[in-house]
């Protein structure tokens, strides 16, 4: 066992393969970009293929290869299930699955794992049933969890080499120019898919909306695309993008949001031209509204908003409170529409967004990011991956990427969820190291990371109630008690890669 910088014990075999986490900027990354194999397409040749079956045949997919999908269709996705069913029917086995993330709707994956079709998985996240099955040990090899930026890095440097990318697209022409803004089931940005398209040997666009050549705007360009398949439906529009985002009326979420907004407003970073990223939860959306109110009062404009984008951000863009949005994932219909209609709402790839190895990711330019947490520990380490039962149920997402990049990183979390404390001695799984976290915001007040003495000084006269992180933990434990340790078995079911490729934690299995 090797102990990494956040005190986690990493089994030797895994430590040797990946190296252990030594600090958020400890690795200086230099790599030669991985190259995709290209087979040219001559005038008169068609990329259109009748069925997914025929496309799989044409790509030459074989046992042992790596395939990928994007998760822009979230819970509405039909593409991954369709393609995997076809691959399974064709008898291809022992594949590595390198999806950008895996949703609840991908439950059939459990059968494909059990049947030996999929034997390796890397993903940002694993949701309820698939996550639980992995935690219960259905795979021989551990899943590799990568952040959005970390996946971009892994693909660019060749740690993940995708043989065939199957990329669902809300619109495409016959030559494979694709975007997510037009069609029956729009998803807005195709930021994750753009990385796959650039670096995969074979790229198959799967669409339910074939449009005349050339399809613009071009998110995925024709020169990366080998084949185009038209199907009846790539996904359920309501699962892909929710309608109008509802604002929370939950008073505790509002209180957390208020405290978070006050912390940002009183920080040295809140000024005209600042930049920010917020998440999609109830509290963060409310926080954006409180920020907007204060920005109107002070006549501040944000230079840009980044990240997963929701319609309230786009409303701020239209109002002129935000100059530009750069968007790697559009979370609702309003965000998808804004990207289509507003030239200042700009689509970027996941590598542009967060890859720590490239020549400068967008997260590096962030002033403020607001993130959530399942658990935070007294070293400020954050878990967004495993639940209080030890089962994998979350997603790494851009958490550690934005946390490392931004000048001010806030975690907004209730002190207690149900009967479970969220501020604890040790998180189950470290996704983002405490050194990336500056302020933890709860409904009763905030805790500033002691390494940020500058912030502690800046908040000396604040009316925000302030506690040490240990005091917050004690307040949580005083109500619900100290949680019993989870009974893990000794099988590593997931390796948690930090964004730089080192191992920040491993997840052990839980018996059923």
């Amino acid at each position: 066992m090797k102990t990494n910088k956040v005190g986690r014990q990493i089994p030797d075999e895994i430590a040797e393969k990946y190296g252990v986490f030594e600090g958020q900027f400890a690795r200086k990354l230099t790599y030669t970009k991985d190259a995709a194999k290209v087979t040219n397409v001559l005038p008169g040749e068609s990329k259109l293929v009748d069925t997914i079956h025929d496309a799989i045949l044409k790509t030459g997919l074989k046992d042992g290869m790596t395939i990928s999908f994007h998760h822009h269709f979230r819970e509405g996705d039909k593409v991954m299930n369709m393609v995997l069913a076809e691959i399974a029917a064709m008898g291809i086995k022992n594949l590595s699955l390198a999806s950008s993330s895996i949703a609840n709707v991908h439950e059939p994956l459990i059968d494909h794992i059990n049947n030996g079709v999929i034997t390796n998985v890397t993903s940002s996240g694993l949701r309820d049933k698939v996550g639980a099955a992995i935690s219960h040990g259905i795979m021989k090899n551990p899943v590799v969890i990568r952040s959005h930026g970390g996946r971009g890095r892994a693909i660019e440097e060749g740690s993940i080499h995708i043989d065939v990318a199957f990329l669902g697209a809300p619109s495409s022409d016959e030559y494979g120019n694709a975007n997510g803004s037009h069609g029956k089931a729009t998803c807005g940005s195709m930021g994750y898919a753009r990385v796959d398209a650039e670096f995969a040997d074979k790229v198959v666009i799967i669409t339910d909306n074939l449009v005349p050549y050339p399809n613009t705007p071009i998110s995925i360009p024709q020169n990366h695309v080998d084949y185009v398949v038209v199907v009846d439906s790539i996904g359920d529009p309501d699962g892909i993008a929710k309608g109008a985002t509802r604002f929370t009326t939950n008073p505790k979420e509002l209180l957390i949001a208020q405290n978070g907004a006050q912390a940002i407003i009183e920080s040295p970073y809140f000024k005209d031209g600042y930049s920010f990223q917020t998440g999609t939860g109830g509290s963060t959306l409310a926080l954006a509204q409180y920020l907007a109110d204060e920005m109107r009062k002070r006549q501040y404009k944000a230079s840009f908003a980044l990240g997963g984008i929701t319609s309230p951000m786009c409303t701020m863009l239209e109002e002129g409170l935000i100059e530009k949005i750069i968007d790697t994932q559009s979370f609702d219909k309003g965000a998808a529409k804004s990207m289509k209609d507003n030239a200042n709402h700009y689509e970027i790839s996941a590598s542009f967004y967060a890859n720590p190895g490239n020549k400068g990711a967008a997260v590096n330019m962030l002033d403020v990011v607001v993130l959530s947490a399942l658990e935070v520990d007294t070293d400020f380490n954050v878990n967004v991956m495993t639940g209080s039962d030890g089962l994998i149920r979350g997603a790494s997402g851009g958490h550690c990427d934005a946390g490392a990049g931004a000048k001010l990183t806030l975690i907004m979390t209730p002190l207690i969820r149900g009967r479970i404390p969220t501020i604890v001695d040790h998180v189950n799984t470290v996704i983002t190291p405490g050194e990336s976290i500056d302020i933890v915001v709860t409904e009763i007040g905030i805790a500033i990371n002691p390494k940020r003495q500058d912030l502690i000084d800046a908040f000396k006269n604040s009316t925000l109630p302030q506690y040490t992180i240990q005091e917050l933990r004690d307040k949580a434990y005083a109500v619900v008690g100290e949680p019993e340790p989870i009974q893990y078995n000794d099988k590593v079911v997931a390796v948690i890669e930090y964004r730089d490729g080192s191992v920040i934690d491993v997840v052990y299995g839980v018996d059923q």
Partner: protein
Amino acid sequence: MIRDAAIYGADAVMFDLEDSVSLKEKDTSRFLLFNAIKTLDFGDLETVVRINSLDMGGIDDINAMVRAGIKVIRLPKTETAQDVVEADEAITAAEKQCGRELGSTRMMAAIEGPTGVLNAPAIALASKRLIGIALGAEDYVTSMKTRRFPEKNGEELFFARSMILHAARSAGIAALDTVFSDINDMDTLRKEAELIKQLGFDGKSVINPRQIPVVNAVFTPTQKEIDNALAVKAAIAEAESKGSGVIALNGKMIDKPIVDRAERVLMLAKAAGLAVEE
């Protein structure tokens, strides 16, 4: 909600054992609340419990709540001074049994019907434990064969509100206004809070934490009011130092009611957490 009741900025939190609890759940909720009050830290918050009427389990409620250390017991549907006296006696008995300081449990009486409204002056004087009387409007308007018209200045409640105010002021205790039930209509809530502040109420019950900032904003003095109150105090100090008997500020004579009002403004400002430099 019980666990988080302290965090929303209310001055007092009132737990209900009465109408919001179904008959089957009365024992469970009393037990739950007893343990919550014993266990949880409510900080400076005044804890109040609305008990059941004495013939419907209210005695059990009193016994449990006094032992738990509740600060205030709110009697529902108070019709006569005798109702208050009986509750007072039950509280005294409970305090004796558990060794709590006699008289340390305070009382509020909710007046929720025409008889109670007409008896308000006697009710307000019925116990030394009483710190305030409150209007419960929903039952009252039903008994009066009307309903609430918050959009029409609540004229249907004008007599009851006035009675309660007079009774409270005459007895030297607080007058508290009824809840506003539409938790999504903040504009009407604000208007109603402004109205009852104008009438003279000390505060208003709310039923959702989101209503707290709205009511607090109405009751928080404006900077102009605070400045004026400070000027009044300064003028008095100056007059006293000069030994002058007649005090004037900006051409207006300052007499005792003006001084009292200034002090109340400053008290409210401090209670609202505003920085007041005297």
